């Protein structure tokens, strides 16, 4: 078990800065997911933690030890690669034991650890095969097994599931979560898949163009996104954004939204946890599809129904609200009853407000 400190790390490829002042503290035994779109620097950050990429500024600490200039082999980490990176000429057992053999671990112990990892991953019957004789899912298990036998306090995963088909991906996701609970090791996991991130992580660091936009618990990121980017990236379908106006008054804070009907110009968001006292002016309001309810009366957004997508467990209804497309998640039965128009209640307790110029949460 081990804490990881990433201290103001900057990395450049020539003139291109790929990591900008990345600063994270990862607690012992946590499952941290680095999430972001392609090219956001998440894999580079993982490689920097592994020691496979040099960083120009900042420091990396593992278990309180500064390892910025330490070789990958001496950092006490194990890593699983996206392409599995199994040694093609070795059997599964030799693949798994290679690291131990390099480090001159005694033979009986190597044998024991390989058996232990193989049992844990249910690949005992594959130990004598070559990687080319395995399916994608089996190769992934072997790649994880190769990391496990090292019994390091930190495991790094670089998009380990992205080469698998959807069904296997779900299975392996559960498997990895189970491993984390069994081993209690610190794990860092890179992915661009928000479902993997939400289901696996105890903490998520969401990245964009080399910057960590937000670092926190998955629920925090989902409920209280720190920026428009985070709000739009997490959640499927993504959060609905509406341009509005804030107008603080004596008793509370009024939020004007386009298409607001029911005899009212604004809804009151006085209970919103403003970071700084609310200022009058333009604002972007973010509403999660599942937070919006269809109502018959009271203040609500007047919407024209575009279409309804039945998804089995629930339905997704799309409305046109004063020229903005808004999605609402409904119960499967309610989805069938949506008419040509609908009234969408604004969930004032669950709304997220962003400054349109800085794109940050207010």
């Amino acid at each position: 078990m081990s804490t990881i400190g990433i201290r103001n790390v900057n990395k450049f490829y020539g003139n291109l800065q790929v990591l900008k002042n990345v600063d994270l503290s990862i607690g012992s035994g946590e499952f941290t997911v680095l999430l972001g779109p392609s090219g956001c620097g998440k894999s580079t950050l993982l490689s920097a933690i592994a020691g496979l990429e040099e960083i120009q500024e900042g420091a990396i600490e593992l278990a309180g030890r500064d390892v910025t200039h330490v070789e990958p082999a001496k950092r006490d980490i194990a890593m699983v690669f996206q392409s599995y990176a199994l040694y093609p000429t070795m059997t599964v057992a030799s693949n798994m034991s290679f690291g131990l053999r390099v480090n001159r671990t005694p033979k009986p112990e190597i044998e024991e650890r390989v058996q232990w990892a193989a049992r844990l991953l249910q690949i005992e019957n594959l130990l004598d095969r070559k990687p080319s004789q395995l399916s994608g899912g089996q190769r992934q298990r072997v790649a994880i097994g190769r990391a496990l036998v090292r019994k390091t306090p930190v495991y790094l995963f670089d998009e380990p599931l992205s080469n698998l088909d959807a069904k296997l991906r779900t299975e392996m996701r559960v498997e990895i979560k189970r491993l984390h609970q069994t081993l209690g090791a610190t794990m860092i996991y890179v992915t661009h898949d928000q479902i993997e991130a939400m289901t696996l992580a105890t903490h998520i660091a969401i990245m964009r163009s080399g910057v960590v936009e937000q670092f926190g618990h998955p629920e925090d990121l989902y409920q209280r996104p720190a920026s428009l980017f985070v709000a739009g990236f997490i959640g499927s379908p993504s959060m609905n954004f509406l341009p509005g106006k804030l107008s603080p008054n004596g008793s509370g804070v009024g939020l004007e939204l386009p298409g607001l009907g029911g005899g009212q110009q604004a809804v009151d968001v006085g209970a919103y946890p403003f970071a700084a006292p609310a200022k009058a002016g333009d604002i972007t309001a973010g509403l999660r599809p599942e937070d919006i309810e269809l109502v018959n009366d009271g203040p609500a957004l007047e919407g024209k129904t575009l279409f309804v997508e039945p998804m089995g467990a629930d339905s997704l209804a799309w409305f046109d609200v004063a020229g903005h497309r808004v999605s609402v998640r409904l119960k499967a039965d309610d989805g069938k009853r949506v008419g040509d128009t609908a009234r969408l209640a604004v969930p004032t307790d669950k709304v997220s407000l962003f400054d349109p110029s800085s794109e940050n949460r207010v």
Partner: protein
Amino acid sequence: MSVAIDQVAAPPAPAPRRFQMKPSRIGLYAFLIISALFFLIPLLIVFNTSLKPMDEIRTGDIFDLPIDPSFAAWAEAWTSACTGRNCEGIRVGFWNSVKILVPSVIFSILISAINGYALAQWRFKGSELILGALMLGAFIPYQVILYPMVRILSTVGLYGSLPGIIVVHIIFGLPVLTLIFRNFYSGIPIELIKAARIDGAGFFRIFFSIMLPMSTNILIVAVILQVTGIWNDYLLGLIFAGRENLPMTVQLNNIVGSVTGERTFNVDMAATMLTALPPLIVYFLSGRYFVRGITAGAVKG
């Protein structure tokens, strides 16, 4: 009526395709056969003549088949053909060639493989420059370098010795072989190296445990190139090997060139065949790997 119905129900199966020779095909085969003969006839004449006694050669045509084929000339070429006053046969040259060949092939391939692996997988400062220098080295005709090479080797005391000729072969083999290995190793995913580094393996451990076992095909290509190249070499052996270590090719030339009395064509031809055999055997045994290895790097890493 029933016949008609049958015909409708089951249309006649297409007649089995007869083997048809189009004129273009005939032309193609004719060209191939003539080309093959063009290259084979000298070899056939050499082989044919080596099986005849001198009487037949003197009286007959070179295309006449031997009346009583015998390998007597081969035996003579191997054990007692003369180069000047020395009459121990071409076997002396054969063993000299083997002594030159084996270490030259092993070391040139090993060093080139390590070089190629370093250039392909470990980006270091100046690696591009070294690659450029190698490209240049691969295309410089070696006649240009002969004299400087002689001076260098005589300075370090290796000129005219077995280690001298071996060093020369290794050096002249390096540029092309390094490029071949570099291209092969460039096709291997970098993540393999990363995984091995995390597993704690160093530069040489990765090379010997992971890269080399993956290189069978390209190693065979390199072995073929080096064996045929070094065995067939004449110029370098003549210049650098020294009087005691002249390779088989040089000795063959001496046997053919030293005439005392009548020219013994059958012995000369037998000696030629003996000299040409080893590379031929290497080709026949591993030709298919050669093709496979050359294309291997292109398709899959």
